C-alpha cells in the first residue's frame, strides 16, 4: 500500500511540478518578452533590417485601443548594432522603447537592479543587462558607443551613458539586448514620427487571443500580425521535451510500483501458504483463490490510491501557493527562462489518468502472485511449517 501511495504521489507531484515549470516559462515569456500579439512589417521577420518598418505604427496603436481586451501596448524601434566600450566590442540588439508604455507592457522597469529606468531627465540613457555589465565592465554612468546602419544604409554612431542595469531572470535573452529611449533611436535610424518596427500587445484575457488577433489584422491589413505561439515556437518544443521526460519518469515509477506490488503480494502469498493450502483443501477452487489475491490487491490499491491522491493534492496546493524555491539552481533555470520559484499546477485530467493507470498497474502486478497461489498443491502447502 505504501508503494501505491508513494508512487501515485510522486507521479502526480512530478507532473504538476513540470507543468508548473512549463506554464511559468510560457507565462514569463509572454509577460516580459513576447506579449500576446505583435505586428511587424511583412518582411521584418525574414530580414530584420531597419528599412522594414511600419509606416503608420502610432495610428495603429491608437486604433487598437478600441479593443477592450488589450491591456497594454507599445511601439518599438530596433536595430542590430556594434557596442563599443573601453573593454571591447560586441554585437547587440538595440531596442528603442516608449518608456511608460513599455513599462506597462513588459514590466521592464521592475527589473532594474542598479540605477534607474528612463525618467526623461537622464542624458542619453541606456539600459544594459547584468550579464553584459559584468562582461563589459559597465557601471552606472559608464559611457558606451553604438554603431549601426540607418534606414538609408548609412552608418550612424550614438553615444550613451548607462542609466540602469536590468536582470529579468532570463539571462539567455537579457544578454542579447540593450534598451534606449524610443525617440533617440527612431531619429538616429532616420524614421519619421509615428513610424516603428514592432508593435506589441498584452491581452486581458488570453483565451480571446484569436479574436484580438483578427481585430488587429483588420486594422493593419498589410502587416504581419503574429501570436506568441508563432513568435516563440521553442515554447512548444520545451513543452514536448518536458512531456517526454515526464513519461520517462512515469514509466520508471510504474516499473518500481509493479515490482513493489509483486513483492508485497508474493510475500502475502508465501506468508499464508498454509492458510491457502487449507482453503484449497476444504474446497475453495482455483478461480476463487486467484480472485481472492487479485481482490486483495485491488482493495489495497483502492485504499492506497485516494491517500496518494490526497497527499499529492495537499502538497501541490501548498506549493502552488507558496512556491518551491530552487534558489540553488537559479542560474540554470534562469538560462532556460524560468524563475527559481516554481509553482506546481494542479491538472485534474492528469490526476484522473494517472490514478486509473496506477490501479490497472496494480491489478496487472497482482497476476503473478495470484498465479503462484493457484499453483500451490494443498497437500504440500499444508505441510509447510
Amino acid at each position, binding site marked *: 500500500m505504501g508503494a501505491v501511495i508513494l508512487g501515485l504521489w510522486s507521479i502526480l507531484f512530478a507532473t504538476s511540478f513540470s507543468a508548473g515549470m512549463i506554464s511559468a516559462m510560457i507565462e514569463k515569456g509572454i509577460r516580459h518578452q513576447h506579449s500576446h500579439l505583435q505586428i511587424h512589417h511583412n518582411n521584418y521577420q525574414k530580414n530584420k533590417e531597419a528599412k522594414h518598418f511600419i509606416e503608420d505604427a502610432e495610428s495603429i496603436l491608437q486604433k487598437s485601443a478600441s479593443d477592450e481586451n488589450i491591456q497594454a501596448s507599445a511601439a518599438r524601434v530596433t536595430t542590430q548594432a556594434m557596442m563599443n566600450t573601453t573593454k571591447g566590442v560586441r554585437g547587440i540588439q538595440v531596442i528603442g522603447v516608449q518608456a511608460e508604455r513599455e513599462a506597462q507592457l513588459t514590466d521592464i522597469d521592475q527589473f532594474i537592479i542598479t540605477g534607474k529606468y528612463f525618467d526623461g531627465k537622464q542624458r542619453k540613457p541606456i539600459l544594459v543587462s547584468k550579464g553584459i555589465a559584468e562582461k563589459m565592465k559597465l557601471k552606472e554612468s559608464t559611457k558606451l558607443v553604438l554603431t549601426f546602419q540607418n534606414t538609408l544604409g548609412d552608418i550612424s554612431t550614438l553615444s550613451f551613458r548607462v542609466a540602469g542595469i536590468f536582470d529579468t531572470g532570463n539571462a539567455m535573452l537579457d544578454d542579447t539586448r540593450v534598451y534606449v529611449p524610443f525617440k533617440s533611436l527612431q531619429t538616429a535610424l532616420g524614421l519619421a514620427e509615428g513610424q516603428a518596427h514592432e508593435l506589441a500587445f498584452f491581452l486581458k484575457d488570453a483565451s480571446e487571443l484569436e479574436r484580438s488577433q483578427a481585430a488587429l489584422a483588420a486594422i493593419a491589413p498589410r502587416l504581419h500580425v503574429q501570436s506568441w505561439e508563432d513568435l516563440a515556437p521553442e515554447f512548444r518544443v520545451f513543452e514536448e521535451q518536458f512531456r517526454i521526460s515526464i513519461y520517462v519518469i512515469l514509466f520508471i515509477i510504474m516499473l518500481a510500483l509493479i515490482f513493489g506490488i509483486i513483492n508485497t503480494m508474493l510475500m502475502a502469498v508465501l506468508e499464508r501458504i498454509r492458510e491457502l493450502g*487449507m482453503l484449497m483443501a*476444504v474446497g475453495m477452487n482455483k478461480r476463487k483463490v486467484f480472485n481472492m489475491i487479485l481482490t486483495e490487491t485491488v482493495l489495497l490499491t483502492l485504499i492506497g490510491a485516494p491517500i496518494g491522491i490526497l497527499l499529492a493534492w495537499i502538497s501541490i496546493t501548498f506549493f502552488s501557493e507558496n512556491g518551491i524555491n530552487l534558489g540553488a539552481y537559479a542560474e540554470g533555470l534562469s538560462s532556460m527562462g524560468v524563475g527559481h520559484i516554481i509553482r506546481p499546477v494542479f491538472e485534474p485530467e492528469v490526476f484522473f489518468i494517472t490514478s486509473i493507470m496506477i490501479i490497472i498497474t496494480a491489478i496487472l502486478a497482482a497476476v503473478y502472485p495470484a498465479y503462484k497461489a493457484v499453483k500451490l498443491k494443498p497437500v504440500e502447502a499444508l505441510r509447510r511449517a
Partner: protein
Amino acid sequence: MSLIIDVNNIEKTYTETAVPVHALRGVDLQIEAGEFTAIVGPSGSGKSTLLNIIGGLDVPSTGSVVVNGTDISQLNANQLIDFRQKNIGFVFQAYNLIPVLTAKENVEFIMLLQGRSKSERDARVKELLEEVGLMDKMDNRPTQLSGGQQQRVAVARALASKPSFVLADEPTANLDSKSTANLLDIMLKLNQEEGMTFVFSTHDQRVIDRARRVLTLEDGKIVSDIKTKA
C-alpha cells in the same frame, strides 16, 4: 452400515526424491458410516499419506479409492476440490484457522463457498459452536483462543459443510491432556449422537484408547486392524 470409504490395493511412491520413497505398499481398507477409527503407527509409516489420499488431497500411484461410490482417483483437480467441499471435513494438526476471522466466521466461510443462505449459515454456526461448547467465544479471533478451543473451532468448521465423514490428521498433537479429553468427548458425542464418521491419524495413546477401531500401519502396510468396541 453402509460403506463410505473403499481403498483397494493402493500404492504410493514419491519419485521426486533421488531415492524413490515407497510410502504405501498395497493398502486395502474399508470404512463404514459411523466408525470412529484411529490410524496409528510410527513416523514415516504412511499415516498422513493414507489420510491425504482418502481425502483427495493426494493421488495414489496405483489402486483406487472409492468414496461414497465415487472413484476419486479418476477426478480432475477441480472436480476433486468440489468433491472435497461437499463430502469431506478436515481437521488439521495445526488447526489452520484463518487468523483475521472470528470463530463464527471461520466456521461460516465454508458454507459461503457452498453458497448457503445467511439464515441457514447462522443457524448452523450456532448449532455447531454450541456442540463444541464455544458459543461465548464466537466473536473471538484465533489468537484470543487456547489451542484446545481453536481445535474445537476447527472441528466445527469441518462439520459445517455437512460432510459424510471427517478426516483428522493428528488432531491432538498440539493439545494438553485436558484439551485432548475435551476434544475427544466432543468428537465421540458427535459420532454417537449424530452418527458422524471420524477417521484420524494419531500417535496419542489417549486417543487410541478411546477409538473403536485401531488400524496400525508400518512401512506402508496395515499390520493390524483391531475393533476394540462394538
